[in-house]
C-alpha cells in the first residue's frame, strides 16, 4: 500500500499522457478514439479516488509524497505531493475531464484524434501543476498547460479563435515569465527548487530579502493574477471563453483558472506571508472590484457564453478576497468556492454548449421559452444557476458564506461590498434564465429542439449531484481543507510574530 501511495500521484498525473501517446498511434476511427479517450479519463478519475479515500483527514502536511532527484545542476527534484487543498483540485480535474469527453462526442468531428490528444495532454499538465512541490516542476507543468489550451482554442474554436488563442497564450506566457524570474532568484539564493526548502529559507532569512521580497511577491502575483483572472488583467478571459470549444471552456473555467488561485494560496501566501499581509488591502480591493464589475458587465451581455465568462470573473473575485482576508474562514471558503465554481461553471459551460450544438448561436435573443421544448434541460440549467448564485443546499452557498464571513472578519467594509456581489449574481443569472427559458417561445425554430440525449444527461448528472452533495455535506471536503489552511495561516502568523518581535 505504501508503494502505491508513493506512486499514485505519478500514475494519476501521467495516465492521461500515456493515453495521449497511445491515441496518437490509433488509426483514425472516430468512434474508437472517443471511447478510448473516455476510458482513459475515467481510469484517471477512478485512480484519483484513491486519494481522498486514503487521505489522513486531520493531518496538515503533504501526503502521498514522491521525491526523486531529477537533475543535479540545477538542483531539480521530481517531487510530487498533495495536501488538502491540492487533492480536491486534482479530483476536480479528473472529474471534469471524462465529462468533457462526453460533451464533445458529437460537436467535434474534424481532427478528432488531435482534439482528444490535446485534451489528455492538458489534463496531465493541469494535474501536474497541483501536485508539484518543486518550483521548477511546477513552472514546467504551468507552461505545459498553455500550448494544448491555446491549440484547443485556436484550432477547434469559433470565429475569432486565432485572435483569442494568441491573446490567451501571450498574456499568460508573458505574465508567467515574471514568475520564472522570481523562481530563479529564489533558486540562486536557496540552492534548491523545493517548496519546503524555499519556505524554510525565507523564514530564516527575513532581513536578507527585505528589498527583494516585494518584487518576488509581485513576480509570482502577476503570473497568478493574470490566470485567475483578477481585475484588471482579465481581458483575455471573455475572448478565450467565447471562442473556445465547449470542452475547452469547461476545462478553462473549471480548472485552469484555479491554477491561478491555487498559486496565490500556495506560493504568494505560503512563501511570503508577510508580503501577503501587507498587500492584502489593495489585492482585496481589486478582488471586490472584480466581483462587482464582473457581475455588472455580465448583466448587460447579449451573448450567453460571455455572460458566463464574466460570471467567472465575478466568482473568482470571491476566491481572491477569501484568500487575502488572511482568516481561516476566508481561506477555507476560498478553496471551497474554487471547487464549487469548478463544478457549477463547468456545468454552465456544458449547458451552453449543448444549446449551441443545436442552434449554433450563443445570442440570448435567439432563445426564449426554451422550458417548453426542453424541460429536462431547463431543470438542469436551473439547478446549476441556483448553485452559481449561492442558494443554500447547493454548493455555491457554503463557499460564498465562508468567504464573506472571513472578509467581514478582516474588514467589515469588504464583507459588505462583497455581499452585494451575491445580489448582483442573482440578478444577472436569474434574469438570463428568465429570458432564455420562461415565457412563450419566441422563435418557431426553438419549438422543434430535441431535449437532452442520454449522453448529455450522463454528462450533466454527476455535476448536479456534486452540486447538491457539496451543498448538503460540505464537511466531506472541508475536513481535508481545514487543517491545511490552518497550517498555512499559522505559518503566516508565526512569521508575522517573528517579524514583529524582532
Amino acid at each position, binding site marked *: 500500500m505504501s508503494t502505491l501511495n508513493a506512486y499514485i500521484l505519478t500514475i494519476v498525473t501521467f495516465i492521461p499522457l500515456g493515453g495521449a501517446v497511445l491515441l496518437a498511434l490509433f488509426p483514425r476511427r472516430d468512434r474508437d478514439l472517443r471511447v478510448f479517450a473516455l476510458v482513459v479519463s475515467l481510469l484517471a478519475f477512478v485512480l484519483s479516488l484513491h486519494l481522498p479515500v486514503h487521505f489522513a483527514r486531520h493531518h496538515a502536511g503533504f501526503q502521498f509524497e514522491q521525491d526523486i532527484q531529477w*537533475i543535479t545542476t540545477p538542483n531539480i527534484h521530481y517531487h510530487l505531493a498533495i495536501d488538502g487543498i491540492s487533492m480536491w483540485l486534482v479530483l476536480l480535474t479528473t472529474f471534469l475531464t471524462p465529462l468533457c469527453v462526453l460533451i464533445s462526442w458529437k460537436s467535434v468531428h474534424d481532427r478528432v484524434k488531435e482534439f482528444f490528444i490535446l485534451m489528455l495532454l492538458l489534463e496531465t499538465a493541469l494535474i501536474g501543476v497541483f501536485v508539484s512541490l518543486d518550483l521548477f516542476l511546477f513552472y*514546467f507543468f504551468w*507552461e*505545459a498547460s498553455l500550448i494544448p489550451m491555446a*491549440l484547443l482554442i485556436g*484550432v477547434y474554436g469559433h470565429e475569432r*479563435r486565432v485572435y483569442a488563442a494568441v491573446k490567451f497564450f501571450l498574456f499568460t506566457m*508573458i505574465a508567467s515569465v515574471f514568475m520564472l524570474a522570481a523562481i530563479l532568484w529564489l533558486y540562486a539564493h536557496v540552492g534548491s527548487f523545493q517548496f519546503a526548502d524555499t519556505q524554510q529559507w525565507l523564514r530564516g532569512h527575513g532581513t536578507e530579502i527585505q528589498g527583494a521580497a516585494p518584487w518576488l511577491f509581485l513576480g509570482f502575483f502577476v503570473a497568478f493574477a493574470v490566470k485567475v483572472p483578477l481585475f484588471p488583467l482579465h481581458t483575455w478571459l471573455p475572448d478565450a471563453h467565447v471562442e473556445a470549444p465547449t470542452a475547452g471552456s469547461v476545462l478553462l473555467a473549471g480548472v485552469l483558472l484555479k491554477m491561478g488561485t491555487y498559486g496565490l494560496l500556495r506560493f504568494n501566501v505560503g512563501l511570503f506571508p508577510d508580503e501577503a499581509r501587507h498587500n492584502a488591502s489593495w489585492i482585496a480591493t481589486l478582488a471586490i472590484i472584480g466581483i462587482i464589475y464582473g457581475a455588472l458587465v455580465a448583466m448587460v451581455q447579449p451573448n450567453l457564453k460571455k455572460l458566463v465568462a464574466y460570471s467567472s470573473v465575478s466568482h473568482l473575485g470571491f476566491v481572491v478576497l477569501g484568500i487575502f482576508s488572511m482568516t481561516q474562514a476566508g481561506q477555507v471558503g476560498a478553496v471551497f468556492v474554487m471547487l464549487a465554481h469548478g463544478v457549477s461553471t463547468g456545468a454552465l459551460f456544458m449547458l451552453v454548449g449543448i444549446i449551441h450544438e443545436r442552434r449554433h448561436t450563443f445570442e440570448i435573443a435567439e432563445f426564449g421559452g426554451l422550458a417548453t421544448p426542453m424541460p429536462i434541460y431547463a431543470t438542469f440549467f436551473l439547478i446549476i444557476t441556483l448553485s452559481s448564485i449561492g442558494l443554500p443546499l447547493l454548493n455555491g452557498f457554503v463557499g460564498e458564506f465562508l468567504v464573506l464571513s472571513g472578509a467581514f472578519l478582516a474588514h467589515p467594509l469588504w464583507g459588505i461590498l462583497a455581499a452585494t456581489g451575491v445580489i448582483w449574481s442573482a440578478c444577472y443569472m436569474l434574469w438570463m434564465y428568465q429570458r432564455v427559458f420562461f415565457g412563450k417561445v419566441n422563435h418557431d425554430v426553438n419549438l422543434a429542439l430535441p431535449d437532452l440525449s442520454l449522453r448529455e444527461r450522463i454528462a450533466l448528472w454527476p455535476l448536479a449531484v456534486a452540486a447538491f452533495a457539496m451543498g448538503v455535506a460540505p464537511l466531506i471536503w472541508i475536513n481535508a481543507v481545514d487543517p491545511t489552511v490552518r497550517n498555512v495561516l499559522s505559518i503566516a502568523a508565526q512569521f508575522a510574530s517573528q517579524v514583529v518581535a524582532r
Partner: protein
Amino acid sequence: MPTSFFTGTDYALSLPMILLSLFGLGVLIIDLMLPAEWKRWNAITALIGLGFSTAAVMRIQLGHFADGRPLVGSFAYLSNVGGQVVGSVLMDGFSIYFFYLFLLGAAIAILMSAHYLEIEHEHHGEFYALILFSVVGMMCMASGYDLVLLFIGLELMAISTYVLVGFLRRDKRSNEAALKYLLLGAFSSGIFAYGLSLLYGLSGSTNLQVIAQALQRHYSANPKDPIAIVAMITTATGLLFKVAAVPFHQWAPDAYEGAPTSVTGYMSVAVKSAAWAMLLRIFLWGLYPLRPVYLPLLVFVSVATMTVGNFAALSQNNLKRLLAYSSISHVGYMLLGLIASDNITNKTGIQGILVYLLVYTFMNLGAFAVVTSLRRRDIIGDEIDDIAGLYSKAPTEAVLMLLFLLSLAGIPPLAGFYGKYFIFLSLIQTQHYVLASLAVLYAVLGLYYYMRIGSAMFMRPATDPEPVAISPGMQVALAVTAIGTVGIGILPEFFIRAAGWSLGIQQAGTSLLGFLR
C-alpha cells in the same frame, strides 16, 4: 633544443583534422567519377569522414585524457616559458566539446542538404568537401592556442563559408549574399589581423599564454594603456563581427536570407559555435588581464544586440531573415553569460554559453531543416506564407517545428530553456540584476515572433495545396534534432555535466540516469 617535434601526441591531436582533409579530398575525387544520379554518395562519403573524425576525437578524449590534464601539442616548440612547454594547439576539454559540436552540426547540415541541392540542380561534390574543410578550420579555431593558427583557421572556415553561401550560382540573392558576406568578412578579418599584430607587438609572441602574461605585466604597470585598449578593441571587432553582434551584424540577415537554406542552418550553428569558441578562447585565456576594459564594451554590445535582434525580428515576413535576427538576439543572451562569468571565479556563465551552443545546434538546425524542406518545385519556401497551414500538409513536421520554436523561445522542458537558465543564473549569482531583467523581458519579446510562425502553421489555411515531400536524409536530420531538443530538455544532466567537464567543473552526485563523467 627540441628532441623531436612531431611526436605521437601531435599525430593523435591532429588526426581529426587530417582525416577530415583526406575525406574532403576523397569527396572531390569521387565526385569526378560519379554519374549524376549517384551524387548522393558524396554526402555519404562526407558523413563517413565525419564519423572517422569523431572516432579520432573520441580516441583523443579517452586515450589521452585519463586524468583530465590538457594535452599540449608540440607543434610549436617554444623553449620553456614560465616553466611550461607551450604549444600552438591546446587540446583541453573545451576544444573537445567544440569538436563534437562542429562534427554534429556538419553531419546534420549534410543530411539536410542532399535533397535540397538536387532540387536546386546544384548537387556538386564540392559542397560536401567545403563543409568538411570548413570543419577543419573550425577545429583550428577551437583548439588553437596561437594567434597564427587561430587566424588561419578563421580564414579557412570563412572562405569555405563564403563559397557555400554563393553556391546557388543562378540565384541572384545567393550571389549578392556571398558578395556581401565576403566583403564584410574580409574587412573584419583585416581589422582582426591588425588587432592580433598589436597583441604580438605588446608581448613579442603569438602564443595566448605569453600574451596573457605580457598583458598582465603591462596592464598592472599601466592600467590606462591605450595600445592594449586599441588592440583589444580591434580584436574584439573582428570576433564580434563573426558572431554577428550589433553593430557588426549587418551582413547576417542578408547572408542568411540569400544563402541556400541548409547552408544558412549550418552557418547559424556551426560557424557561430566556432566563432564563439575563438571568442571565448581569446577573451578568457588571452585577453583575461584586460577584463575590466572589455567588460563595458561587452555590456553595450550585448544590450544592443538583444534589442536590435528582437525588435527587428518582430516585423519580418521572411522566415530565414526572422531566424537570422533571432540568431542575433541569441548571441546577445550568450554575451551576457560572458559578462557575468570570467571562468575563474564564476564558471556558470561560460558553462551556460557552452550548453546554449549545444542546444542551439539542435533546435536551430531543426528549424532550418523544416524551412529547407519547404523548398518545392516552384516555391522557394522562404516566407511565412509558405509555412502557413503546414499542419494540414505535413503534420509531423509542423509539430516538430512547434517544438523547435518553443525551444528557441526558452520554454521548459525543452532544451532551449537550459541555455537561458544558466545564463540567467550566472547573472543573478554575480548580481547583475538589471541585465537579468532585461534578458527576461527580451526573452518574452522573442515569444511573439516565434508564435507568429507557430500560429501560421496551425491556424492559417495553406496557401498552396502541394504536399511537402521529405527525403530520407531530411527525416533523419529532423529526427536527430527533435530527439536532441526534447531529450536534452527532459534529461539534460549528461550534457550539463559534459559542458561542466569541458570547463573543469567537478560535479558530485548522481542523477536519474546515474551518468557520471
